[in-house]
């Protein structure tokens, strides 16, 4: 833990008054995934991202999938994350989601499911790299016995993907990472990635837009910027386009983007595809665009906006997990079996009042793995967030971020709610006989 603190590998927890800089808890027992299992996961992730990118292109373009009512348009178009303003706007190289983090869980039988898609500003990749760095230092001998696939290549791939997005005619693009600033929960990650890629870490006030071109203020005057890896949500990106009170955005940025003078990764409006209600439709989306069955199944999901589903949810609320469609970080959810009568009643009323805002899923009997806690071992739940880059090629991190629930029996692994993480080992092909953990 001391090693993490010294390196400043921290995570901010907003409601915690003392804690704008907490060390992200780390468990030394790695999670091991066999080559065979990983092959399937990787194929499933690539398939999912291909379909979601086609979906985004379609819903902001011709809307075929909606017009043919393969998925209910009222669910998709009523998403708070759907940006009508960018309809018909071409995105650089036709790709909407360049950087995605897909949350996977495993049930007691060992099957992987997709729990959530993060297609806007997924975070956590720096912890994947930091965890491996620490593991190699703390337990170097352990690596000798296993053919563990490296995770180092991510930063180079990310930079290559960002360079590829440069506007036409720009051979040596200036790329920046746009952060909301040092008080953001993931600032450490922004700092880490910018340093590793050798690009400037900029805040909104560092950028200025003039005649639809973006510049950064440097000591040698204004310097043109061609690609922005933004770690800011759509609504904060540009006070003219989104929230007027945004002090972290750049006025005029969206117009520069519209004019094709700057590429922004990820593109705007991706939130519609990772809306938790639209998540329930992803298997249909995959079948529609790719004409394939989904390799990775979803967790069964009930959409409260649909009458039949809602009726079922209200009757079985005590056995389901209820999630707000726009919630994240483990906030705004109800775990039925662990809830009180009052909490269930409260959610029942909220679902009835705003059915589009909620989904429900059965409680997944998450797989468990031992954790080393104060000198003893105990069981803990965990999930996995691999990162997928879509660009000149599709790149999937070997493994991803394994988050663990640190509280005894808890199902919530989110770092903002005190979850921790561990290194994830994907074994190379010749290690196939080993068991997954």
């Amino acid at each position, binding site marked *: 833990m001391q090693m993490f603190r010294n*390196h400043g590998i921290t995570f901010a927890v907003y409601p915690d008054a003392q804690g704008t800089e907490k060390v992200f808890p780390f468990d030394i027992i790695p999670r091991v995934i066999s080559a065979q299992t990983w092959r399937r996961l990787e194929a499933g992730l690539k398939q999912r991202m291909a379909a979601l990118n086609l979906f985004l292109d379609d819903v902001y373009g011709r809307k075929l999938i909606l017009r043919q009512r393969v998925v209910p348009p009222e669910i998709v178009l009523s998403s708070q994350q759907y940006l009508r303003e960018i309809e018909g706007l071409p995105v650089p190289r036709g790709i909407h989601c360049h950087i995605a983090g897909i949350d996977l869980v495993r049930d007691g039988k060992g099957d992987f499911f997709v729990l959530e898609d993060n297609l806007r500003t997924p975070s956590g990749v720096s912890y994947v790299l930091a965890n491996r760095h620490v593991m190699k230092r703390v337990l170097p001998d352990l690596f000798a016995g296993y053919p563990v696939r490296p995770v180092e290549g991510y930063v180079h791939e990310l930079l290559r993907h960002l360079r590829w997005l440069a506007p036409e005619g720009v051979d040596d693009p200036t790329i920046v990472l746009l952060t909301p600033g*040092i008080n953001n929960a993931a600032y450490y990650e922004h*700092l880490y990635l910018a340093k590793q890629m050798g690009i400037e870490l900029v805040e909104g006030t*560092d950028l200025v837009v003039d005649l639809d*071109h973006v*510049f950064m*203020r440097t*000591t040698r005057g204004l310097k043109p910027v061609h690609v922005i890896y933004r770690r800011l949500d759509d609504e904060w990106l540009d006070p003219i386009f989104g929230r007027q009170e945004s002090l972290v955005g750049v006025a005029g940025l969206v117009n520069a983007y519209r004019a094709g003078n700057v590429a922004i990764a990820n593109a705007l409006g991706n939130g519609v595809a990772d809306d938790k209600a639209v998540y329930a439709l992803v298997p249909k989306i995959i079948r529609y665009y790719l004409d394939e069955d989904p390799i990775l199944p979803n967790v069964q999901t009930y959409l409260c906006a649909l009458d039949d589903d809602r009726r079922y949810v209200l009757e079985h609320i005590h056995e389901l997990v209820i999630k707000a469609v726009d919630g994240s970080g483990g906030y705004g959810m109800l775990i039925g079996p662990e809830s009180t009568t009052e909490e269930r009643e409260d959610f029942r009323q909220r679902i009835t009042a705003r059915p589009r805002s909620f989904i429900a899923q059965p409680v997944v009997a998450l797989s468990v793995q031992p954790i080393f806690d104060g000198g003893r071992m105990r069981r803990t739940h965990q999930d996995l967030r691999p990162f997928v880059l879509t660009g000149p090629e599709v790149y999937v991190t070997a493994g991803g971020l394994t988050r663990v629930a640190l509280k005894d029996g808890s199902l919530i692994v989110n770092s903002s709610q005190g979850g921790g993480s561990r290194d994830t080992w994907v074994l190379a092909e010749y290690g196939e006989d080993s068991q997954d953990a």
Partner: protein
Amino acid sequence: MLSRAATSLTLLGRHLERADHLARILGVHVSLSLDRTDEPGPEFWARFMELAGWAGSTPSGRAEAVEVLITGTLGPSVRSSVAAARIAAQAVRPSLPTELYEQVNALHWRIQGPTWQPDLFPFLNDVQQSVRLVDGLLEDTMQHDEARDFVRLGKFVERTANVTTLVTRKSAELTEAPEDTLEWSAVLKSCFAYESYQARHSGGVTAERIIDFLLFEPALPRSARFSAQIALDSVSRIDGPGRRSKPRRLLSLLHAMFNGAATQMVAEHPREFETECRGVLRQLELAMRETYFHPSKVPANVIGDEGRAMPQQQ
């Protein structure tokens, strides 16, 4: 380099230098007050406060002056300067060696408590030693590039201003009378220059020699001339060959003022000299802001003349 980073690096240099200077003059003046047979009255401390940047402040005595200068928040104090340096360092963590940031951070937390109350001198010593350590880290662990030059620019412009203020104010206040000898020695000590002055001038402490030594000596790292020279060197490197920016021109002017000014003229008209220097320093601040910190001129090769054509506004 990003303008925001340049701003913060300059502020880091400036505020650490200020913390060091305040700790130094406070220690020297408290020591001076203890050396006197009579307890100095409020006037002594009012003059000291004005020198430290608290014009109009009238502390009742030593204890209050010490407290304000260490903990005050409405003007320059040791704590507020270190806090400002830490905020600046936080904003440019990508440009700083980790150890350097940690030193500034650690110093900030160390001086938060009331540790100065029982032991003032070790406390002030700790602040000065810590600033020295940061200086060392800057020279020894940081790349000698633009980032370092901006820290040095902030530091040495601040030092030029501080030394000039100290020397000219004291010249206006003190006489050559023997009773002021102790105060003149304190001026030298405030600039770490007492021993080197003694080594240079065996004939005792005289006002003119001190003015000459502290303002115009090219080899004394605390002299105004030396500081202006380092600031000018930093700006010259930042600009690179072929660019003669406004800050560079103004620093050349400032350096020339310490190069050519007659000691006697300063001794006779210290206030005028101070006003003149302050005028140049103020212009320099504005020029640095325009040139490095808030540039607004769009390069012509990006948009071109055609793109610049805008409808006339009424």
